[in-house]
Structure formats: structure tokens, C-alpha cells
């Protein structure tokens, strides 16, 4: 049977196609990563490294990055966890080497004040600007409406007529 010329496939042919497509996709998928020896430790590792920045690919977390560097650091963290280090100790270890930059949650200190308070300042500034603007607008709205002069009246009417024509 020539599949190219037949417009309709019978239902069993369709299911064959589906099965083929399905298997092709499976064969393209990645090899399964070996299950960690210690799922509890691995969960802790992921939770911790989600809040750490991968320095090579800076918009990725240490948990999500596939960079070699992230792999190394994850291995290091895993080893320290096995050695019963607390999360704080591990974070201190990394900050001592890579600086606050590894933390997605930077500490509150003099150099980061603008970072922490900046959004609040911007928000307050925007509120202030809004209040000032609304006040000014209200005073404008409540002013006596100005009477148009005769020539202005004429000009307005011609403009309106012009718009209506279009």
C-alpha cells in the first residue's frame, strides 16, 4: 500500500504511527540520571542550592545549572553535608570564597542598603508623585471652565466638521 497516496489512514495505521512517534521520542530523551544514594540529602542539597547563584551562568541557580562549575560546587556541598555540616556552615564556606554574590538572598548590610530599601523608596516616591499630581488635577478640574472667545469657537467648529467629514 502506498501511504503517500492514501489520504486516510485506517485506525490501526494511525495507532501504529502514534506508537512509532512515541518510541522515537523516547529514544531521543536523555539517559536517566542515576538515582541519588541518599534522597534526603539530595533534597536538602537542592533546597539549599536553589538559593545560590551559579557564578558561571549567573541567571541560573546552583540547583538548576548544568555548568561544570555548578556540578563541582554541588559535589562540594554534598560532601560537606555528608560530613554533617549545617546549612549555615556551608553557606559561610561559599560566601568566604565567592562573596555575597553567590547568595540570591543578599544579607542586609551597609553596602546592600540601597538594594533592600531602593524598591520601597521608589514606591514611596511614586505614591508622593501620584498624590501631588491628583491634587493639582483636582484644582484644575474645579476651576471655572473658561468661556471660549468667538474666534476660538469658530475654530473648534471647523475642526469638528473636518473630523466628521473624514
Amino acid at each position, binding site marked *: 500500500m502506498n501511504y503517500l497516496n492514501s489520504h486516510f489512514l485506517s485506525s490501526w495505521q494511525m495507532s501504529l504511527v502514534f506508537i512509532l512517534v512515541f518510541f522515537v521520542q523516547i529514544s531521543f530523551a536523555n539517559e536517566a540520571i542515576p538515582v541519588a544514594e541518599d534522597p534526603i540529602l539530595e533534597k536538602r542539597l537542592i533546597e539549599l542550592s536553589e538559593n545560590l547563584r551559579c*557564578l*558561571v551562568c549567573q541567571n541560573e541557580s546552583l540547583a538548576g545549572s548544568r555548568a561544570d*562549575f555548578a556540578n563541582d*560546587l554541588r559535589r*562540594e556541598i554534598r560532601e560537606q553535608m555528608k560530613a554533617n555540616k549545617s546549612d549555615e556552615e556551608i553557606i559561610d564556606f561559599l560566601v568566604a*570564597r*565567592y562573596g555575597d*554574590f553567590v547568595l540570591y538572598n543578599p544579607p542586609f548590610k551597609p553596602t546592600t542598603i540601597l538594594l533592600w530599601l531602593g524598591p520601597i523608596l521608589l514606591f514611596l516616591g511614586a505614591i508622593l508623585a501620584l498624590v501631588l499630581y491628583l491634587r493639582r488635577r483636582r484644582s484644575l478640574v474645579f476651576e471655572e471652565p473658561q468661556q471660549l472667545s468667538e474666534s476660538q469657537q469658530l475654530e473648534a467648529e471647523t475642526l469638528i466638521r473636518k473630523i466628521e467629514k473624514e
Partner: protein
Amino acid sequence: MMRFLLPLAVFIVLVVFLGIGLTLNPRQVPSPLIDKPAPVFELQQLHDPSKTLASQDNMGKVWMLNVWASWCVACRDEHPLLVQLAKLGIVPIYGLNYKDERSTAIQWLKQYGDPYAVSIIDADGKVGIDYGVYGVPETYVIDKKGIIRYKHIGPVTVKSLEDKILPLIKELQG
């Protein structure tokens, strides 16, 4: 008048900030190790693994630690400069061969020249982590007391050598 001046002022401030932002390199993360003691290591030497080199062996002299690897393309950029610097004999350069294959590393040095007083093997990158290495090449200047005084991220350039590294080394050797 205020109607235009205020947005203009805001715009100019924004442009200035964005302009400054453009000149910064987000890949250059300031190292917290500056002015701190260099992390201690004792590693096998590349050319003779039966011998080791410890960081304390360099106490009392100013030295440079250059992190390199044969797989690192940017290392090739800076390498001729390092070879030249080594010839001048101003400062000993030690090579930290980072996550590399020993035989390819030796071959690489044969091909491009060997500026290093000694190269040491950091096969699994552990010492690299201690030094806060996240991109190769990186270069450290360490003083007589074993304190890290400067870190250069990325390939060393003529400009960085002349402006920063060499004057600093002269001052430290002083």
C-alpha cells in the same frame, strides 16, 4: 517649564546609571579573598608528581598564581604574555593546572611555552574552589606574608599588567 525639566532630569539620571552599568562587567565578581591569607594547599607537581608544592613554600616572596588548563581557550590568549613576563624574571609565576589531563597539560606547555616556576595539579578543582575560581584563567598576586593582594579574572592583558599587576608587585617587593 517644570513639566519638561523634571522628566528630563529623571531621564538624564537614568541614562547616567545605565551608562555606568554598561561599563561594568557582571562576570567580574569581586573576590572576598582580597587581603585575606591565601588558602593553604599542598599539591603534586605537574612535571614530577612524586614531588609536591605547598603554599607555605612560597612564604617570604611575592608570587603569582595563575590558574590555567589546556582545555581553556582564553588561556591561550594570555599565555604569550606570561611567557614574556617569566623571561623578565620579575616575579615567579606558579601554575595551578585546573581540572586537566596531565599528559595533555604537559603537551600544551611544550607547544605554547612554559612560563611557570612550577605547575601543580588540581585535578578535581578542590583547591580551585578554595581560591574562589569560577572561570579560567584567573591570576592571583600573593605577597610575602601569604596574603592575596590582587585577583585578575580572565586573560591577563598588557594593560592590566602595566596598570595594576606590575606596579603592585614592585610595591610589594619594595
